[in-house]
């Protein structure tokens, strides 16, 4: 992109080209965007920055909270050797058998704590 020219200064030798250029330059050649456009850009960026910083703070709180809950959770797991489903590779499963082997295996509650939101599922 080395041959950049100023279109408003370029003249066309053909009549149609000159007419087209004249019309376009007359209509939009000297237009100025309103001042408030920049204000809107500035406001949006500042709002986005605030959202990002509050999001980072929230993520930190959640990770600390998750860690605490995870620590507590591993202590209340009763049957750690049982099969569980519905858990991704990256999550940390916490299984709580409220009835301690008095119910069939398929009714074991599994609580997965992959995200801050606790997910509840049935094990088979």
């Amino acid at each position, binding site marked *: 992109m080395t041959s*950049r020219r100023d279109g408003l200064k370029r003249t066309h030798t053909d009549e*149609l080209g000159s*007419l*087209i250029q004249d019309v*376009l330059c007359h209509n939009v050649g000297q237009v*100025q*965007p309103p001042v408030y456009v920049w204000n809107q850009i500035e406001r949006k*960026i500042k709002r986005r920055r605030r959202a990002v910083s509050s999001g980072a703070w929230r993520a930190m709180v959640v990770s600390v909270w998750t860690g605490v809950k995870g620590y507590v959770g591993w202590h209340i797991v009763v049957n750690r050797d049982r099969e569980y489903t519905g858990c991704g590779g990256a999550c940390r499963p916490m299984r709580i058998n409220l009835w301690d082997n008095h119910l069939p295996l398929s009714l074991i509650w599994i609580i997965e704590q992959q995200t801050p939101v606790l997910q509840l599922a049935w094990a088979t």
Partner: protein
Amino acid sequence: MTTWNRERLASLESDGWLITRIRNGDLEALGELYERHKMLVYRTALAITRDERAAEDILQDTFLRVYTYADRIDVNVPLGPWLYRVTVNLAYSWTNRVKRWWHYLQDTLDRLVSPQQRLPETMAEEQEWRQMLQQAIDGLSPSHRVVIILYYLEGLSLKEIAYVTGVPEGTVKSRLHYARQNLREAVLERERRLVPEVAYDFT
């Protein structure tokens, strides 16, 4: 080194420097870049969309993208083509969203309320000429209109337009040819209506 090259190099360096500052979250640098290129973006967007509010939105979105994607912008090449590319893409999206009838409706309203009846004869005629040609440009397909605007208003070469629009140079050349042909037809049609016996041929 010619003056033009020196100016271009200086502009290139400072654009690159501003982008680097924007990467570090410098809003003032974005402001400087905005002041430098706002006319280019706004003018192009307005010429394509023919809608001031849309052009303002496109201008806003374009510079928000500069801020968001500053890391991906190559600071070693001029920023202009990248800006044209984003502007044209946003204008395309806008044009696809808006129904064409809206333009016709607006043009009709413009004609009804325009004060050309009060203008002297020559001014009214000139005004009518411009209006007719502008309508013909507006009536072109978006891809043809963009080529006409980038070529005649922005003064880009065929190669540059090919980069901005993302199509081969041959396609740009063909679009320019057909767009010009359509506009020539529109002008001749008007001539025929005004003076039926005169068939003026444009070069």
